[in-house]
């Protein structure tokens, strides 16, 4: 989320980080809500919601965006599993850069937080 905030800041976008935790909220990023719904659909267990999200994403951002979004979701599905399975800690720089929003968003309560906050 540090990189999300920085990339939005670089483009004068006021991003709502709470939406990443609660996807019922709006991100403030163009196309962001369709992307959130799609990501949620791919990793979640509601196939109808995924099918609907895929259609809406294709309509909003195009067929190439569905391909790209699938590749990004898959990439993080892999990385998250590797990180959580091996118990790697977060680098100090990113720990510091995320300090101001982690507690507010409940990220410090993630089970895997114990690997970095020990």
């Amino acid at each position, binding site marked *: 989320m540090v*990189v*999300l905030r920085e*990339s*939005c800041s*670089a*483009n004068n*976008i006021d*991003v709502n*980080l709470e939406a*990443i*935790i609660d996807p019922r909220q709006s*991100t403030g*990023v163009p*196309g*962001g809500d369709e*992307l959130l719904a*799609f*990501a*949620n659909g*791919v*990793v*979640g*267990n509601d196939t109808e919601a*995924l099918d609907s999200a*895929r259609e809406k994403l294709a309509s909003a*951002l*195009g067929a*190439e*965006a569905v*391909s*790209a*979004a*699938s*590749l*990004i*979701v*898959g*990439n*993080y*599905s*892999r*990385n*998250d*599993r*590797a*990180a*959580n*399975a*091996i*118990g*790697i*800690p*977060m*680098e100090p720089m990113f720990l510091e850069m995320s300090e101001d929003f982690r507690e507010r968003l409940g990220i*410090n309560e*993630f*089970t*895997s937080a114990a*690997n*970095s906050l020990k």
Partner: protein
Amino acid sequence: MALYENSNFPIGPETETVHTEELATFSQPGVWFDGAERRSIAQAARRARIAAGIQGANTTSDAEHDDGLIDETMRLVIDAIAARPMAITEDLFDDAIADGLSEGRYVEIAGICARLANLDDVARGLNIDTGALLPAQQGEPSRETPSVLKDEGAWAKTIPSSGGGPEGEALYGGNEMQPFIYRSISQIPPEAKRQMITGDLQYLSLENFMDFNYSAHPSLTRAQVEILSGRVSAFNECFY
């Protein structure tokens, strides 16, 4: 049939080639498991995802077959990593080691389950069948443990990117600031190498990471890419 031939959404030839190679690795001899065992681990990972409802009906039928190569300790590890990554605690690792699974075998299982989830989630996103696992290749596992493994603060030892000697140089290409995510499964260098190859291809290469206007995907801005990565990591409760 080509891996993405039935996709209504375009996937470039480089990605299709790399993913076809990626799929083949699950049936090839690894470091601690032979081809049949690795294939069986991949099948079990798919079964766990189906049982959890996160892998739909468009999964190839090869996942249904259980050839009995997975013991109970391995199954618990596979189920957790494949289907419930948000609930993994250090107890999973400690219990597996206490039950006789070596650290190297644990890490190799983690690599297989994580990398397979990538391919299978891409297929789910594209609304196509998952790629069929290839028949197991003959051959012995290499049984090579890197000589430079260190306790860098994770549960399993890793190859450091600074001071990793020739093995670190070979794996990280001389980058002494390799992020921990790419060192996570480095105890099994071929697994870590595949993670980096697909990471560069699907997300971005490390030299562009701090360029917050850079996106490797023309159809998405960097902010849009990070919306996706943020949501997936929040869902999986990945603090990293």
